[in-house]
């Protein structure tokens, strides 16, 4: 068995649409400083660093080298990992495996993105095959719009069900000082917002943000000395789908099912609704907050709208999802998945401020991107 590992520090920037006052390295450094402050550590305590983003958003090659002034990796080991939208989850896993290997005691994972410097959707389109699919793959929104259109037809879900998720996420974000979009909205506001790609409207959609997040992982030897209540990593898992979008099973999302099955099994979770106290899920569109609930094993296929209408995932519900406001309120893409892990850890550590869910012992975070890469991490207040 590897070394037991916990999250002991979290730092993030105040995310916003354009950070013209800082360059990329400075943006990264804001998150790094806050994470070090949160853990009462200094840079000399960090044994290794992992960093990630999406190359084509800022057009900087070899980001691990370029970012050294911001990350503090001078004369330290640093490596870059990236898997598209799921990069943040990939980073968290990488930080975890660094420590779990027994080779490093304290490791910092950094995710960042300055989306304001890019044409995000144009860059994303180049993930598809240049000959067969690129000409008509219209960025990230199309596949999820099609997914929800099919779900509505099959199970009678409505646009209002998705709007209800959007309202939950946006209204939760009001209590998160780091969130990008912080505005109380109603289902009516969502329904009246401009249609982007039917049935997804503007307020059903995540923003593009500038921001960074840093999460510090520590070994069993160090963690209890650093954090009063470390968030112990119990399991991680990831799955991805095929190379060509045309090969996907759009009605089943096999990657979500495979990942959660594996992570629940590794963490000993038999009934996620009951066994997990809070989840930070990577839901890029409100529609995902409906459809994917089936595949998270919260309910039978097609039952998600009922749970949403009952408020099961609201702040005062049985399983609060995204107290932070989630991806719908904040989306610096390379950082987004790591923010989910950071927020889940803050919930365990009891440091989530106004967005704190009471008595969190088990928290789960996910990340999503590229060919339906689906990453999950389970954190607990107790050691594995």
């Amino acid at each position, binding site marked *: *068995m*590897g*070394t037991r590992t916990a999250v002991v520090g979290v730092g993030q920037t105040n995310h916003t649409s354009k950070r013209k006052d800082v360059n990329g390295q400075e943006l990264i450094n804001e998150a790094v400083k806050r994470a070090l402050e949160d853990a009462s550590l200094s840079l000399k305590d960090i044994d290794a660093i992992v960093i990630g983003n*999406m*190359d*084509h958003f800022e*057009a*900087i*090659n*070899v*980001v*691990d*080298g*370029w*970012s*050294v*002034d911001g990350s503090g*990796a*001078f*004369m*330290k*080991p*640093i*490596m*870059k*990992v*990236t*898997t*598209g939208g799921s990069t943040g989850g*990939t980073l968290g*896993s*990488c930080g*975890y*495996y*660094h420590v*779990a*290997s*027994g*080779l490093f005691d304290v490791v910092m994972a950094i995710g960042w993105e300055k989306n304001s410097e890019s044409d995000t959707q144009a*860059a*994303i389109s*180049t*993930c*598809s*095959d*240049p000959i067969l699919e690129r000409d008509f793959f219209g960025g990230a929104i199309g596949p999820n719009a099609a997914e929800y259109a099919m779900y509505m037809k099959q199970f009678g879900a409505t646009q209002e069900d998705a709007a209800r998720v959007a309202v939950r996420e946006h209204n939760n974000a009001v209590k998160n000082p780091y969130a990008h979009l912080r505005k109380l909205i109603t289902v009516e506001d969502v329904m009246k917002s401009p249609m982007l790609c039917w049935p997804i409207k503007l307020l059903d959609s995540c923003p593009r943000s500038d921001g960074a997040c840093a999460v510090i992982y520590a070994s069993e030897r160090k963690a209890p000395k650093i954090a009063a209540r470390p968030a112990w990593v119990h399991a*991680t*898992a*990831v*799955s*991805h*789908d*095929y*190379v060509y979008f045309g090969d996907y099973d759009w009605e089943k999302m096999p990657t979500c099912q*495979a990942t959660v099955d*594996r992570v629940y099994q*590794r963490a000993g979770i038999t009934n996620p609704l009951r066994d997990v106290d809070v989840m930070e899920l990577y839901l890029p569109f409100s529609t995902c907050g409906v459809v994917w609930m089936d595949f998270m094993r919260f309910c039978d296929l097609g039952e998600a709208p009922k749970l949403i209408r009952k408020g099961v995932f609201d702040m005062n519900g049985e399983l609060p999802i995204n107290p932070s406001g989630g991806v719908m309120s904040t989306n610096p893409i390379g950082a987004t998945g790591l923010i989910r892990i950071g927020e889940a850890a803050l919930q365990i550590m009891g440091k989530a401020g106004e967005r704190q869910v009471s008595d969190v012992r088990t928290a789960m975070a996910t990340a999503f*991107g*590229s*060919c339906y890469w689906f990453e999950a991490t389970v954190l607990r207040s107790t050691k594995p």
Partner: protein
Amino acid sequence: MERIAIVGVGQTKYERGKTKNFAELVYEVARKALDDAGMELSDIDNVVTTTNDFFDGRTIACMPIAEASGSYGRDATNVEGDGTLSAFYGLMRTLSGVYGTTMVTAHCKVSEGSPRKLFNQAFDPVYDRLLGMDAISSSALQARAYMHRFGITEGQCAKVSVKNHGNAKNNPYAHVALDITVEDVMKSPMLAEPIKRLDTSPISDGACAIILATEERAKKAARKPVWIKGVAHCTDAYRLGERDLTHSLPLETAAKKAYQMAGIKDPSREIHVAEVYDAFSYMELMWYEGLGFCGPGQGGQLIDNGATQMGGKLPVNPSGGVLSAHSVQVAGLARIAEAVLQLRGEAGRRQVPGAKVALAHGITGICAQTHCVWVLSN
């Protein structure tokens, strides 16, 4: 560190203008590594791939090779950087107790892009990029600084080129194998003073894969396991003006850590063969020094006295090194694969007889900002 073995390796032939696509290249080496290990895909617990969105010319470049690497249906991740770093991450995942085996792949089709323009994107977009800086021009600055400080000559650098291009004749995977003299190197066209064409690595397409296994799982593999004794990586400052370009402190630091893990006190005696990342001929001399094969500034003497030739005290790059095949990101992983073949005694005509301890080395970034050092043993 728990004992982790390399149980399978696979490489393509390196050449310019390969017609196979990314997935086909990765499939070729993943299949070869499985066959080499006597394993099937069902024996692989997780996969680490290596991509670069710039060289691959698409965003999320881990997508197109996902199925080919065997990661469908299992845990997977993706590193951007040299393959030695991907292998290091694979080692950490194998050590975590979660996985018993890890497949690590790297591929690159350098010929499909413009390597000089793509590497220019690694420079600061405001201050350096507009100067047209690239791998050759920045390395020329480093070469000149190093040569000036220690009195290293162009002729000594040329000897590295003669040695490695000659060694490449014994390596069926090598891209550029040449019978050349120091004079040929000196007369080859100047690219960026003092770097000439024959001091420079070629534009190569190719792929490499290795399979890591815990001691328990290595028992089931077909080949004699090669054990990982020590690994470390370390990164320098970003801006060239903030670095000592004449001596790589990160290399020295990574090497010392790897040697400490492996219990190596005198690397020049205890290491029997080394595969180092010689993107340019001067680099091999610098890396001799950083790796402790000789003292600072003595790289020139070491090549002069023949110690690193085949048959010398410490042969370096029997495969022909990166000077004879430079598939970016793959090249470091290929160094590991070559070291494994040496330790198994399966390196054919490039075999160093009786090699028991081997070193593999990778770099990434401007003027080798990051170094990764591996010590392996049979």
